[in-house]
């Protein structure tokens, strides 16, 4: 397929100079008499879109219209009208969709943060019922930007729709080895487990162990702490009754670590215990108050207002007035 992305191509011929288009009268954008946010279009852009408007008006489904949408999509991959029309043509002409996969792949690799190109890809995969190239494509994009939201969303959709969970945890491990702070990879870990084994007691035990080891390596990695909290959502005993987690946080605290994420989880453990009637005296309102003050004044000053708000809520919920402190 030829690539008409104009500036790369000296031989580019405007549509108005192409004999095969001579029967079409180009249709200019219906602009205001008085200009409003009038974009100073380049000649190639205006030329191509004037012909695009004309064929849409004619509802022309043809090879030349298909070629025109290719140019239009290259000029502005965010034009959803172009992609939608292109899909109508692909259907109307019963085109080889594998060729189309290759075309959109090229644009995705150049414009990987664009809703329309990924959606086009998704529709093609749905039509073909063939997800075989999708893991590779998303891995290619993620190798350049491991947090690309569109790539992850496409990958999750493919995995979920076609049940391609096999090997996904290994991929997540690979990404986390590469960058343990990659929150998208942590989120994918959760996604896979949630949709496969579920957070059974055994899985929970293993995942907690894994996560605590990662936190031991870097204690200010919010991704790992959030994942730990996510795991504990599945612990029937709650946030504050898991003996492994309790032992871990106490040990870390004793070692003089003051990661805000550590102190924050202890505050929430205290609040849970106090709210439940205070089964574990180690997690008291008094301790929560002291931690909130430490966070406000020393370890997490940017969030002072939030910690003050937490402090106020302890006062009102536990019945222990904090005003006297």
């Amino acid at each position: 397929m030829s690539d008409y992305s104009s500036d790369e191509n000296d031989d580019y011929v405007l549509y108005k100079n192409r004999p095969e288009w001579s029967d079409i009268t180009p249709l200019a954008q219906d602009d205001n008499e008085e200009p409003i946010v009038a974009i100073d279009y380049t000649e190639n852009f205006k030329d191509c879109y004037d012909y695009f408007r004309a064929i849409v008006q004619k509802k022309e489904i043809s090879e030349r219209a298909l070629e025109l949408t290719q140019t239009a999509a290259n000029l502005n991959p965010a034009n959803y009208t172009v992609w939608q029309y292109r899909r109508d043509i692909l259907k109307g002409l019963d085109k080889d969709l594998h060729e189309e996969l290759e075309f959109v792949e090229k644009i995705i690799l150049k414009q990987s943060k664009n809703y329309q190109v990924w959606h086009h890809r998704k529709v093609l995969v749905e039509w073909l019922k063939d997800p075989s190239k999708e893991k590779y494509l998303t891995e290619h994009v993620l190798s350049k930007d491991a947090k690309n939201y569109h790539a992850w969303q496409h990958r999750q959709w493919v995995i979920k729709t076609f049940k391609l969970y096999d090997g996904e945890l290994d991929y997540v491990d690979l990404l986390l080895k590469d960058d343990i702070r990659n929150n998208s990879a942590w989120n994918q870990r959760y996604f896979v487990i949630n949709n496969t084994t579920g957070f059974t007691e055994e899985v929970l035990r293993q995942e907690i162990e894994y996560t605590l080891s990662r936190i031991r390596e870097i204690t200010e990695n919010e991704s790992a702490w959030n994942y730990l909290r996510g795991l504990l959502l599945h612990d029937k005993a709650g946030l504050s009754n898991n003996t492994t987690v309790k032992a871990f946080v106490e040990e870390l605290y004793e070692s003089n670590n003051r990661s805000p994420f550590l102190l924050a989880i202890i505050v929430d453990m205290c609040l849970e215990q106090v709210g439940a009637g205070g089964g574990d005296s180690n997690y008291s309102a008094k301790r929560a108050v002291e931690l909130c003050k430490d966070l406000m004044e020393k370890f997490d000053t940017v969030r002072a207002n939030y910690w003050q708000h937490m402090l106020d809520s302890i006062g009102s919920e536990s019945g222990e007035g904090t005003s006297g402190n």
Partner: protein
Amino acid sequence: MELRPYSEIVKNAFNTENYPTKTSSEQLNTEKLVLRKYFEASDSSKNNLQHPELLKDKHRQYLINSTYKLSSVYEVLDASQPWLCYWITHALSLLGIQLENTRKRAMARFLAKCQSPDGGFGGGPGQTPHLATTYAAVNALVILGTEEAYNVINRKKLLEFLWRLRQPDGSFEMHEGGEADVRGVYCALSIASLAGVMNDSALFENSAEWVVSCQTYEGGFSGCPGMEAHGGYTFCGLAALVILNKSHLVDEKALLRWLVFKQMKLEGGFQGRTNKLTDGCYSFWQGAAFPLIYSILHTAGHTPKTHLFSSSALQEYLLVCCQNSNGGLVDKPGKNRDLYHTCYTLSGLSVAQHFLDKICLLGHKGNQVMPTHPLYNIRPDHVRKALLYFSQFQFPRSPTDETERT
């Protein structure tokens, strides 16, 4: 409110714990750029009491010029022209500036050309209608606030358009045959409630449940179930639930915790996702979630006494790090200005400056901008005026009524 001393800001540097990764090195690079700005600011504020100053005149000029002509760089936004109108008019309105009447008329007429005869607005004249550009067009028309502008909206066709995008699970496609995510539900609700076509509860049946299924284990919302919590989608999800009167379905403690931790301790601005970089536009997407949470807390009898994020650190980031000296605002130091970031940084500044009815201002009085409505990101007076205007009309009959009759 005062600038944090430079010596204090420096102490908040990211702690790599001898474990550098790509995330930490990108974070440290950003901190370097930001610190350079804060260092210059601490120097100049010694001699200039006006510092940091919101460059209102420069921003006004940049925005007004943009209503006429935009360079060919904006070709990539050829399918987002109503957005350009909204970003400009809203940013101007926060600065207290209205377009001249002739310009208002011209913009209303331009947006009318973007409206499809089948309902909804497209990215430009003749383009397929799209939920996001319809949201932007309706917002822009509400900001213009003239009868001519209000009357552009074909409410009956608009409702039909929304019905065509609704999915059985309560989500909304962005356009016919397009993708569905949390933006869709939010845009549909914002449009329907502003234009007074919300009478039909069947239109949003299951929508609240679908949106709630996007709240992640981290506490924020994702674009669709299973994905990562993200600032833009969190705003859309929360605002959607508030419009639906279903905010009790949110785990608001987890959400609040996630939100406060998205504010960066050194930069003062917000990141969009855990372990990502600060970006000025999240000042609004994350920032506006706070007033929405305050309303939830208020209902529960826990009205907060101040902003629950650091309003001064956020204003500091916006004023010191996000202004282009020639007008317009940016994502972070070193980035080019654009209309999107100009709109959402000023919107974030507005959120930071207004707490309930109180003003919390960093810098000179002249830095103050107008309040914004956290559900629509339009000035509250513009919202009230539009709601009043549309309330005088009958609700358009919904397409389902007609099918029942046949």
